[in-house]
């Protein structure tokens, strides 16, 4: 029996190890883009260049970008394979650019491709770039991080909580929203500032005042035909308030000719009860005065009341604008339909009817948002 085990062991040893991959064989993919050109899929991949940062200071370009083209996604990947001596390793991908050209029916194929791959994680971000060729975004370098992909993903993640006009969405969330009833995913839009540079060029890294970098823009949702619905700053704010993505967002409102800014400390807004056709939007926002440019004395209680009322109006306007945009474009990126599906199951038959065309426009909204100003910063009143 021992001999038998030995023989089997030797056979296994001699026939080799199939999934064995040395680290040096891997081409580490940090970001990817899928787009369509002339009915052909184009896939761009950003690879990390394995070069040792020697004592010469800045190394050669830390990344390289490869593109492939084909009738299907698999063909496109195969065509990159022809150009590369390494095995794709995409488990640690930071983000993925889904171009608007694949946002129509071909989105299903893209989702299938991404979800089927066992090695792919579910945590990478999904972004889009409406104005730019995705390849140029992938090729842009960053001064802050030698790995530009992690720079972009950090950028998107940070901008959500701090600024409030953007949001991050991971592939898991995107897929969930894509599959769920009555909701369409919203993706952050990135754009390239400055002239287009080749990835091999590392001029960016040598200058302190670079004019070539990636910036997070507003949010974008796609309708069924792949048309981009661009959410402006106000709508983006409204979307983020509704989804409670905002941690420390700044809300600026006017008081007469001047204006003041409050910073939110805690924001909790969501849908409430459904009465007939009327869905309430309830919420509570706690904020502190961040900047005060108005004339009234801040020490007065009434002034604070007034300020919170104005802020309430501003936030309500943001949300109203967002929902109106959704109704106008007939794309429910806010998730009203999903909320109704989950909580008021009898209201609409999601299996038989199309929510975007039949249900969304009929729903009326009722806003009850309360704003309380808790702090006023360092100062007692105003200067």
């Amino acid at each position, binding site marked *: 029996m021992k001999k038998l085990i030995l023989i089997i062991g030797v056979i296994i040893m001699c026939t080799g190890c199939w999934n064995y991959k040395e*680290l040096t064989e891997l081409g580490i993919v940090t970001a990817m883009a899928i787009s369509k050109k002339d009915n052909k899929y184009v896939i761009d991949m950003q690879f990390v260049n394995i070069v040792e940062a020697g004592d010469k200071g800045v190394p050669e370009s830390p990344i390289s970008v490869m593109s492939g083209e084909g009738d299907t996604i698999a063909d496109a990947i195969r065509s990159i394979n022809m150009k590369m001596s390494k095995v794709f390793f995409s488990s640690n991908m930071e983000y993925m650019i889904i171009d608007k050209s694949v946002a129509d029916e071909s989105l299903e194929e893209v989702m299938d491709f991404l979800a089927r791959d066992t090695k792919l994680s579910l945590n990478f971000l999904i972004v889009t770039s409406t104005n730019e060729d995705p390849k140029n975004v992938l090729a842009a370098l960053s001064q802050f991080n030698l790995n530009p992909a992690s720079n972009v993903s950090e950028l998107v993640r940070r901008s959500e909580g701090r600024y409030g006009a953007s949001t991050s969405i991971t592939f898991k969330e995107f897929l969930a929203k894509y599959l769920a009833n009555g909701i369409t995913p919203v993706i952050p839009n990135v754009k390239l500032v400055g002239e287009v540079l080749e990835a091999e060029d590392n001029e960016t890294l040598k200058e302190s005042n670079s004019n070539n970098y990636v910036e997070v823009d507003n949010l974008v949702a796609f309708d069924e035909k792949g048309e981009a619905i661009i959410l402006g700053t106000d709508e983006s704010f409204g979307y983020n308030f509704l989804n409670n993505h905002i941690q420390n967002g700044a809300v600026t409102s006017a008081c007469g000719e001047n204006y003041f800014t409050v910073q939110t400390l805690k924001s909790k807004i969501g849908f409430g009860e459904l009465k007939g056709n009327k869905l309430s939007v309830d919420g509570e926002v706690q904020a502190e005065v961040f900047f005060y440019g108005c004339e009234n004395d801040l020490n007065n209680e009434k002034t604070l009341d007034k300020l919170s009322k104005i802020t309430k109006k501003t936030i309500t306007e943001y949300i109203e604008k967002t929902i109106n945009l959704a109704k106008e474009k007939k794309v429910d990126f806010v998730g009203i339909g999903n909320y109704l599906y989950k909580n008021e199951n009898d209201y609409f038959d999601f299996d038989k009817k199309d929510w975007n065309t039949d249900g969304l426009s009929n729903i009326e909204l009722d806003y009850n948002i309360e704003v309380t100003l808790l702090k006023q910063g360092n100062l007692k009143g105003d200067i």
Partner: protein
Amino acid sequence: MYKITEIANIKNMNTKDILNELIDLKNKMPDLIIKDIKPGLFKHVYIITNEAVSSGDKVNDFILKHFSGLSIVGSNPLKNFKRDVERNIPSINFKNVDTRESLLEFLFSGFTIVIYKNEVIAYETRAELDRGVTEPTGEPVIRGPKDSFTENYNKNIGLIRKRIKSEHLCLEELTIGTQSKSKVGIMYMENICEDAIVDKLKAMLEKINIDGVMDVNNFKSFINKENHTLFPTLLYTEKPDDTCRFLLDGRIAVTMENSPSVLIAPTFFVDFFHSSEDYYHKPFFSSFLRLIRFVAYFLAIITPALFIAIITYDQEILPVSLLINFTVQRSQVPFPAIVEAFVLMFTFELLYEGDARTPSIRGTSLSILGALILGDAAVQAGIISPIMVIVIAVSAISSLVFIYYDIQGSIRFWRYLLMILAALFGMVGFMCGFILLILNLCTIKTFGKPYLLPLAPFLIKDQSNALVRRDLTKINKRPSYLAKKNIIKEVNIK
């Protein structure tokens, strides 16, 4: 040396014949001393001794002084001498010698032979040939008693009896070895120990049929043979306080003459992670040390395998920055990771073995060589990557924390097996190897009891002194799987 020509009664022999034979023998044996003392006219007392095995002081003090200093009056100096010894010096033995054979045996085991006419007496003047009680070398201690067993059988038993002054501490003696005829003692507490285990052990020892045993470690091959495993099932210790602790648990200690260590049976997996020092520290600290030892044991086995599985199969576990870092390091190494790991591991084994066998004077040069050549030069030369050095070092250091040397064998075997499986099948291979390891542990039985006691089968009552140690006042029961009588210790400290 000397030949036994015939077996004859000395009384039937002329003493001259014996003396002539001994004088002949002296030509070939210069350490033989033959003295002729004349206490009176025509009286010859011959004193014969071997200065290598007998103590010169004793011979001088008790024998030569007697015959030369005291004027021996009377016709029978030997009889007077005997009487004097009996009356005044109780610590000296004397024996009447009947045969030529026993004369030689006494002579070479350190006795002094006194011959007067046809009467022969042997006086014990044995020299202390073994070393005294020293500090344990194999199991160094920081806190606690620092004596250790020696090669002297009686001294060893004395060291144990000194600690347990109980009438229940039994000692049974056997003789093992057809040629060496070594004395073996089985010690146990008859009021605690399970009798069946004593009988089983005795039967196992009695069955041994071999020409010579040099050390208790020889018994390894004869006890618990049915287990196919590299895990140690018997514990060897050179510390008397450890031995007494085990005896009080209800275990059996086997001692042997000329063996500086004592064999403890039955012992279980957790016992190899305990040390007598655990009981001299505070419970929290000693529990921490025990957990460290358990973690170290598994780290020593799994670290290289886990690392190989991660960098060759499941790279996605590494964050990107680390991945790039490792890739840069590995890109200069021409070998596959598994070969690299084996090369480094093999070099470490060489160093380890070399260090263990090198006298401490030459040890420093070895460590400089190892640290410089392996740590730095090999990395510089691009033969191995720095990260692999770290991984192997973690594994190697973890394997060094154990007190009992026997556990190293199991670490080596499973470490290499897991490394091969990890290189073939990645994480799944590693897991399968790990299941095999655990299964192997589960199959072992020592004296009919599962080796993993009290962890599996899980005994809640015995957990106070297994993976961790609770306060001594809380451990008021002996291990339920060992002690069958007097289970409750009488430590009611209030």
